[in-house]
């Protein structure tokens, strides 16, 4: 399947992709969200968010709803693939077409969904390039430091300090 095929071994131990950061350390990335299959927000971290319009619970619901709708829309409008699910029906991961980012004049939102339903949303500065490899790397960090941690209960908010540290370190290097 597309998800696993692209890079043979993308584990965090060798070099991270998207090498050197710019002078503004960490200011290229604004926020990150992690959602699970049921819409629960597992992690929300922000590095640079001067404007907050909604209180966090509503913010998470809005984000999840936005992605859910966008995924359904993009599947409906797809001119190439043969079968289309009906709007509103939850799609299996990998089915239909999956959108991966949208760009505005002030930010760029990149999205990745894993086969297990974990959704990673990264909001960055618009000049960042294609962040799909970065999202895959972040997913690997998640698998390593959260899934292999016996003291984390799946489905709850992520509070593992190793994961937070590694994530921060990697986010700083995103161009």
């Amino acid at each position, binding site marked *: 399947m597309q998800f696993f095929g692209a890079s043979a071994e993308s584990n965090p131990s060798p070099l991270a992709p998207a090498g050197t950061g710019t002078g503004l350390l960490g200011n290229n990335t604004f926020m990150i969200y992690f959602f699970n299959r049921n819409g629960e927000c597992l992690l929300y971290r922000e590095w640079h968010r001067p404007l907050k319009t909604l209180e966090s619970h509503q913010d998470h619901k809005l984000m999840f709803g936005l992605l859910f709708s966008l995924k359904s829309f993009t599947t409906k409008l797809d001119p190439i693939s043969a079968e289309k699910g009906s709007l509103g029906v939850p799609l299996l991961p990998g089915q239909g077409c999956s959108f991966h980012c949208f760009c505005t004049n002030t930010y760029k939102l990149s999205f990745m969904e894993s086969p297990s339903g974990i959704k990673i949303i990264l909001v960055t500065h618009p000049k960042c390039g294609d962040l799909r490899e970065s999202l895959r790397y972040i997913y690997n960090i998640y698998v390593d*430091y959260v899934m*292999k*941690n*016996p*003291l984390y209960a799946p489905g709850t908010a992520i509070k593992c300090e190793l994961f937070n540290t590694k994530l921060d370190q990697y986010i700083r290097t995103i161009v």
Partner: protein
Amino acid sequence: MIGVGKTKQYSNVLEKPLSRGRQEVSLSAFAFLFSELVQYNQTHVDNIGELERRLEDAGYSVGARVLELLCHRERGNRRETRLLGILSFVHSTVWKVLFGKVADSLEKGTEHEDEYMISEKELLVNRFISTPKDMGAFNCGAFVAGIVRGVLENAGFPAVVTAHFVPMEGLQRPRTTILIKFAEEVLRREARLG
């Protein structure tokens, strides 16, 4: 499949030659298995101390078997009788076979005569584990402490072995120290041997 392609079938498992076996196992596979071991024990205990004890007992079984295997494979069936001998056996041979590298350091305790410490910057079993704050000083390295205790006790050096986090300046994560406290009889025997 196990057994496919083997030309000679042994009727008795004791007659089979003891092979070198596979030298390496996938780290991810081990991490998931260890994670499940910890989670399984978590559901069966009421407090942290009990959980650490269960992990130690699991390690004890591993240690007892590892001692037999390594004495046969690496040491040509010789057994260690001196304290320093068994400690360097644990520090180098056991660590090398289990974790792929020798332990970072072996030190003698300054306060007490019967204490020794094996230190490691980060134990392999703890590599992916971050303890939440409400679990206090719980250390999954109790499993490794159990392994060391299994090796020492079955070699004739009864000891109490525990794993501790030691915060170090300059390092983000605290170092892990395996503290070995030998029983009285070991020290008396060692003194007698000169």
